[in-house]
C-alpha cells in the first residue's frame, strides 16, 4: 500500500505569523521525530512510500500521515477523487479541538493520537499512543548500573510539575533539565536526552499541557526507565488497559513509591521486566490492529 507522509509537504518557506510558525514547527517535528514510531506501527503492512500524488490509481488505497488537517480540507477532497480509500494517521491535536469532521468523513479509517473517550464510540476511529521521538538507544542500561534515581526534563508549566520537583528534590542522584518551551532552546539534544533517560531508574511523567499523555512516557518505555505517571481520572487505565505502570494522582505518592523501592533491586528488576514485556506486547497488538483494519 502507498504511504504519503504529508506533515511537512508544502510548508511555507518562512513564517509570517505565529500560526505559520506552528505549522512549520510541527510539520517538521513530526517528520523528523514521529516517523520511527509510526513506521514501526505500520511494519506489518507492505508499504511503498511516495512523496507526490502523481501516478495514483483510482482502485488503490493510500495511507496518509498528517497533522493540522483542518487546514488541508481541499487536499483531502482532491485525494478522495484520486484513490479508492484513504487511511489517515492523524498526529497532534492535543486538545482535540482541531477541525476534523470533514476530513475524517472522507477517510475509510483514522488512527489518531491523543485519545479522548468520545473517540472510542466512533467506528472508524482508533486511538494510538503519541509515541516517542527518533533515535531511541539500541541498548538499555541495567538497573543496577543506572546513574540517576529519577529524571525530569521539560517545561515547568504549573502546579503539577512544580510539586513533582518539590517532592523529589531530596532523592539523589537525580537529573533535571528545565526548559521554557517544548523543544525550546535549553532542551538537550536527542542523544543526551535519551542518555539521561536510559541512565535513570525512574522517569517522572506529569500531565501534558492539555492532555494526560506526553512523549516522555513512551520514551522512558523505550529506554527501560520505569515511568511513574500522573493519572488524573484514571485516564491510563482507560487508554492502556491492564498496563503495569506505577500511577499516581499526587507527587507525594511517587516519592514514597521511590523511597520504598529504591533499595529493593530485585523488585525493581521484576517491575521493569513486567513493564517492558507489557509494552512489547502492546506495540505488537497495535501493529496487528493496523494490519487487520487495512485488510478489510
Amino acid at each position, binding site marked *: 500500500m502507498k504511504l504519503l507522509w504529508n506533515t511537512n509537504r508544502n510548508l511555507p518557506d518562512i513564517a509570517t505569523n505565529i500560526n505559520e510558525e506552528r505549522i512549520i514547527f510541527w510539520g517538521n517535528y513530526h517528520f523528523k521525530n514521529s516517523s520511527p514510531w509510526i513506521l514501526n506501527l505500520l511494519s506489518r503492512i507492505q508499504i511503498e512510500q511516495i512523496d507526490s500524488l502523481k501516478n495514483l490509481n483510482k482502485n488503490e488505497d493510500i495511507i496518509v500521515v498528517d497533522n493540522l488537517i483542518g487546514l488541508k480540507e481541499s487536499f483531502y477532497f482532491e485525494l478522495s477523487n484520486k484513490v479508492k480509500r484513504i487511511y489517515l494517521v492523524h498526529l497532534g491535536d492535543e486538545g482535540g479541538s482541531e477541525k476534523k469532521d470533514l476530513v475524517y468523513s472522507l477517510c475509510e479509517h483514522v488512527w489518531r493520537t491523543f485519545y479522548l473517550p468520545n473517540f472510542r464510540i466512533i467506528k472508524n476511529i482508533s486511538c494510538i499512543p503519541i509515541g516517542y521521538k527518533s533515535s531511541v538507544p539500541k541498548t538499555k542500561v541495567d538497573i543496577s548500573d543506572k546513574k540517576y534515581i529519577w529524571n525530569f526534563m521539560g*517545561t*515547568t*508549566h*504549573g*502546579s*503539577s*510539575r*512544580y*510539586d513533582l520537583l*518539590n*517532592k523529589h528534590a531530596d532523592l539523589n542522584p537525580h537529573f533535571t533539565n528545565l526548559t*521554557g518551551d517544548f523543544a525550546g532552546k535549553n532542551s538537550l539534544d536527542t542523544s543526551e536526552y535519551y542518555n539521561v533517560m536510559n541512565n535513570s531508574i525512574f522517569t517522572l511523567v*506529569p*500531565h501534558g499541557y492539555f492532555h494526560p499523555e506526553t512523549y516522555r512516557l513512551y520514551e522512558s518505555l523505550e529506554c527501560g526507565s520505569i515511568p511513574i505517571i*500522573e493519572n*488524573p*481520572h484514571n485516564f491510563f487505565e482507560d487508554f492502556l488497559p491492564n498496563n503495569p505502570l506505577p500511577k499516581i*494522582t*499526587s*507527587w*507525594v505518592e511517587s516519592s514514597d513509591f521511590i523511597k520504598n523501592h529504591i533499595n529493593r533491586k530485585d523488585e525493581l528488576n521484576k517491575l521493569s521486566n513486567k513493564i517492558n514485556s507489557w509494552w512489547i506486547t502492546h506495540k505488537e497488538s497495535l501493529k496487528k490492529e493496523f494490519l487487520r483494519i487495512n485488510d478489510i
Partner: protein
Amino acid sequence: MIFNNTEFNNVYNLIKKDELNEANKILIKLRSSFVLHPDYLFLMSLLLIKSKRTYLAIDAALLSLKVDNTETVLKKHGYENSSDELIEERYLFLISMFKKIKNLELVDILETTMKNKNPISFLIYLEKIMPGIRLKNKL
C-alpha cells in the same frame, strides 16, 4: 451572592449538588465569552476537583487569582473583580488543595496572603515557581 452573574451562581449550585454534567454543559456554553473571567476560572477549578484533577484544579484557581489581580485583562474583557466572598472562598480552596498535596510552604504563604488581603508578593513568587501560570498570549 457569591457571584455577580446569575449563570455563574447556577453553575456553582449545580457543582455543590454534584450535578456535574449539567454544570459542565453550562460552562462550555459560557466559555467563549468568559474563558478568562476570574469567577469562571474558579468554577472550572471546582468542577475539576470534583473529577479528581487536583493539579488542573489548582492551576485554574491560581489563574483565577492572577486574572482577578491583573487590571489589564479585566479591563480588556470588561470583567468585574470577584466578590469578597469569592476571594475568601478561593483562598480557602487553594489552601485546602495545597494541604491535600502536602505542600505546607504554600499553605503558610497563602494563609498570610489571605490575612493581609494582598496577593501581590504571592503572585510574584508564583511567576518564579510556576511560570506556566501566565497570561502570555491572552492579553
